[in-house]
């Protein structure tokens, strides 16, 4: 049905299965981190559960071999497509020396890998958005053919950084796609107290480029929308703002208690839209997945997650001497 091509897809595999694998691996890694957290391993988990379809959808629409990713913090599925391994992710989670984001200096979900063209995140919400614009400016400046993808949350959209960045990208028609992953919450603050509009995407018109709302729980819809935006960027026609409507199933982080600000009923109802569930059903319906192949996939993923956990738990810490390095060249 969706036999679309994607820059990084191996021939033997359909796009949909590849997306599902990335989503499932992200979800299972997430579950493992939260389990490790409860067992006293690691201090800080950030869930991607509910954001996986968006990440998988846009990542397959891009070309990791040349495009730059300036991710949102919950983009685990996209980062896996981009080349981060489960070991990378769990070493990052535990703050161990092999962590590619910073050898244990950064908290979890502060991605980064120069080799993989994943720009580094700080904790400051939206602070990375101008960096993405700078990377996009460099593409135009150097006549390089890459596109820059920049994710941020609904909460982050309130910051002035986003305004200044979008405005600048519009003026120079930079090859960039902004993607607001709107899960309706900034920690506990609901969208109604973050903005008076329904769609962040509507802001794009005020900068002079298209804004599109997409169902972020549907990886194929995200893929299609992303493709259009990416092609527009590659053509030199400038930015697009995509707003992917998603849902965050778990608390904000492992330090949060979401029962204080949303009902269990709401979360349960949202489970019906869980992309892992709905997309799986679709793959079954399309006969791309059956019990046997699903079991094999789950086994493969469990093995990868087990391996990653063992590796990360046994990996060396940041040592005292290393702590003093890399202030300057």
């Amino acid at each position, binding site marked *: 049905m969706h036999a679309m091509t994607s820059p990084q897809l191996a021939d033997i595999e359909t796009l949909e299965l590849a997306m599902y694998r990335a989503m499932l691996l992200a979800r299972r890694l997430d579950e493992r981190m939260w389990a490790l957290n409860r067992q006293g391993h690691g201090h800080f988990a950030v869930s991607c559960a509910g954001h996986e379809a968006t990440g998988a959808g846009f990542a397959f629409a891009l070309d990791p071999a040349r495009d730059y990713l300036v991710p949102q913090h919950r983009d685990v599925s996209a980062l896996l497509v981009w080349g981060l391994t489960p070991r990378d992710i769990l070493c990052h989670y535990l703050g*161990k020396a092999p962590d590619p984001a910073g050898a244990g200096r950064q*908290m979890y979900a502060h991605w980064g890998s120069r080799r993989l063209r994943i720009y580094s995140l700080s*904790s*400051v919400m939206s602070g990375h958005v101008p960096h993405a614009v700078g990377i996009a400016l460099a593409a135009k400046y150097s006549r390089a053919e890459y596109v820059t993808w920049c994710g941020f949350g609904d909460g982050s959209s*309130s910051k002035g950084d986003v305004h200044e960045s979008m405005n600048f990208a519009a003026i120079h028609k930079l090859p960039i796609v902004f993607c607001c992953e709107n899960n309706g919450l900034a*920690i506990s603050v609901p969208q109604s107290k973050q903005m008076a509009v329904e769609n962040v995407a509507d802001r794009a018109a005020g900068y002079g480029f298209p804004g599109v709302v997409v169902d972020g729980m549907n990886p194929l819809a995200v893929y299609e929308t992303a493709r259009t935006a990416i092609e527009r960027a590659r053509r030199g026609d400038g930015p697009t703002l995509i707003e992917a409507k998603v849902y965050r199933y778990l608390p904000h982080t492992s330090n949060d208690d979401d029962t*204080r600000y949303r009902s269990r009923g709401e979360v349960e109802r949202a489970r019906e839209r869980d992309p892992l569930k709905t997309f799986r059903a679709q793959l079954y319906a399309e006969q791309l997945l059956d019990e046997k192949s699903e079991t094999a996939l789950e086994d493969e993923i469990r093995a990868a997650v087990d391996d990653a956990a063992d590796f990360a738990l046994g990996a060396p810490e940041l040592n005292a001497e290393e702590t003093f390095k890399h202030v300057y060249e």
Partner: protein
Amino acid sequence: MSQRRALQIFAMLKSIIETIRDTLRAELARDERVFILGEDVGVLGGVFRATEGLYNEFGPERVMDAPISELAIIGIAIGAAGVGLRPIAEIEFADFIHSAFDQIVSDAAKLRYRTNGDWTCPMVIRTPYGGGVHGALYHSQSIEATYAHFPGLKIVTPATPYDAKGLLRAAIADPDPVLYLEHKKTYRAIKGDVPDNDYIVPIGKAQVKRAGSDLSIFAYGMMLHEALAAAELLEREDIQVEVVDLRSLLPIDWETIFESVRKTNRALIVHEDTYTMGLGAEIGARIAEEAFLDLDAPIVRVTGPDLPGVPFNEIGEKTFLPNAQKIADAARRLAAF
């Protein structure tokens, strides 16, 4: 006292976070002009629970959840303060106050001066700072040194529940903008007696926490407690350490500092913040200017190292942060000088 009894007493004492919450509640009840504005301060009650329950008690207009807009939170508080309200702006983590730097230093700090005293800015900015809770580069920063450079602002940081209440009340009553810094590691770790009456702790006054004759340690926030622990270690070695809690970081109580130096003739300054241009710089220079002849030894600073941030990894974090042991080592050398 038995360990069990000690734990019972500890449980009866108030933590800093409880004290802040109770003081905020009392101030909201006492003065209708007081309101709280910040991220997650409402329904959630703050990421550290400093405002827990206040939303239900006082409603969404007095305990306002803000979007992620540090600049606007501070700027709006400045405007509201100008026309008669008494805003208490909360910045979720001190690390994120940087987005509002311009508002704080260009406006809050300069408004009274630039208008010849016409417009003013009686507001409080509360924010948790400091490391030791695995917060990494962006949830561990000490920000006091940066802001202590801007006349027009005041800065306080309590190290005890008693001071947490007294300084918060003083800050809210103050006619000028006050940065009220809460060391997040002290929130639950430090408990103490908090009187019910309406006392204030005046801004600009330090406190000698422990008298001593061999050397003076100047500290604040969480590091006060590390300094006190170091002093206990050293007492066993017969080194008598005086420990001063600065409490107010702008203005600093120079008289209490100089008096202590006149007595002990040796000055050790402790802070968690990085070394170069940390607050210890001003304290060291001021002593070298105004109490030079009282010094029998060089100034010593025990501080975080000159690194861009506190690493997440525990070994990295421990490597970064000063503690009682590191303070005691430096104090021992200073006493022996």
